[in-house]
């Protein structure tokens, strides 16, 4: 299968200007590739830089060195060098991200929070809502909650809304940051199924997962991030 994501010699250091310019090296020499229909899990101790790598791939963190090539939608974009507009286009067409926490607009109903990525991409609203409803049902969010904004939901419910939102689009590359952290066994199994479905449709997945069972169920390969951790 074709390579969808390829990181080469990626490095990241934070410079904390408010703390006297102290430099916090996070990772260095990060190199790995992910193919279509493959799920790679980033493993490593807490603070090793797993989330930072995901954020660099998504473009939320800037990358100090190396390249992050995404081959999708008939073109190759180096996220490390791309202009903001290229990154926004890439996110709309090729790059999905499920963060650890839901960041939702205050008043928007859950069903629309989930449907929004499809609508933004130009999809028809009713169709987007139908697909959102399917996902919310599968993730065991009771239908009576769908018209409500998710701000008051429990942590686990919010995370499932976040997962539904992240999985609604069929994009070539999906980044998952601890998607199952606060879920019960039943919902973890749903997420495992959802990942398997994405892989069957050709999506390349990069995930951070601490749960051993989930990892065993979804991972085609494991990258040990400890070996990229930069020495301070």
């Amino acid at each position, binding site marked *: 299968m074709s390579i969808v994501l390829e990181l080469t010699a990626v490095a990241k250091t934070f*410079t904390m*200007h408010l703390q006297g310019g102290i430099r916090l090296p996070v990772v260095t020499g990060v190199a790995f590739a992910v193919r279509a229909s493959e799920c790679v899990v980033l493993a490593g101790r807490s603070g090793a830089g797993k989330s930072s790598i995901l954020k660099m791939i998504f473009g939320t963190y800037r990358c100090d060195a190396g390249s992050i090539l995404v081959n999708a939608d008939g073109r190759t974009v180096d996220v490390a060098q791309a202009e903001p*507009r290229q*990154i926004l286009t890439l996110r709309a067409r090729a790059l999905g991200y499920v963060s650890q926490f839901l960041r939702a607009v205050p008043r928007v109903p859950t069903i629309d929070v989930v449907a929004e990525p499809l609508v933004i991409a130009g999809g028809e609203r009713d169709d987007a809502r139908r697909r959102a409803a399917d996902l919310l049902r599968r993730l065991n969010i009771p239908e009576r909650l769908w018209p409500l904004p998710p701000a008051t939901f429990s942590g686990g419910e919010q995370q499932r809304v976040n997962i539904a939102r992240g999985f609604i689009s069929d994009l070539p590359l999906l980044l998952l940051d601890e998607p199952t952290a606060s879920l019960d066994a039943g919902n973890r199994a749903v997420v495992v199924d959802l990942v398997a479905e994405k892989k069957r449709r050709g999506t390349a997945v990069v995930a951070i997962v601490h749960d051993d069972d989930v990892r065993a169920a979804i991972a085609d390969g494991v990258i040990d991030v400890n070996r990229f951790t930069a020495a301070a």
Partner: protein
Amino acid sequence: MMEREDDQPLLRAEGLSKWYGKQLGCRDVSFALYPGEVIAVVGESGSGKTTLLQLLSAQLAPFCGRVLYRMRDGVMRDLASLSEAERRFLFRTDWGYVHQDPALGLRMGVSAGANVGERLMAIGWRHYGRIRETAGDWLARVEIDGGRIDDAPYTYSGGMRQRLQIARNLVTRPRLVFMDEPTGGLDVSVQARLLDLLRGLVAELALAAVIVTHDLAVARLLSHRVIVMKDGEIVEIGLTDQVLDDPHQPYTQLLVSSVLPP
């Protein structure tokens, strides 16, 4: 914006500088705004945000530098070179300007319907029934009860006035809207509603916008890119989540770390 990646900028600022006597307004500001793109300008009071907005919208003339704008015929024009008629066309049709204080952007003594309808009449609409119907549609879109269409905005709450000002600006389907602290001075709950409304309208109408705000949450919710200003200059510019989550400049780090989490 997502569908047109090789398109040309809608507006381009080149080396904009402005002094008020010896007082610096802004210095050497350059950036490009693309169709459908929302840029937030953040920074503390006195950082030059509002000066920049006034320069971009041809309300102030720069000491040096220029602002180029793509007219509807596709030609990039220097705002300083426009005729009075062309400038009026921009203000009446192609641009919107949302003031922090709605009283500056509305006529407080005439009805809400007339406030919205006036912009349509300025571009040649004459049919009273159609004007009123369109004004009514826009009041509904900004969630103002149709029963209030004949009331003057001085009878409205602050949040309603701000929503009315937005309706008045958007009714002519502008391509570019300037907003100066659009949520400033409103209660938090009212702010949330306004932000949500603005967010929907900006996306639905594919508006380009320059939004001046000191509120980083507003920038995060509404903008694609952020410009951070300090002492009249751009200190950092980039993708909104990049600038807010991985700020590089000392001043941006200070700004981001000064926000109290809710």
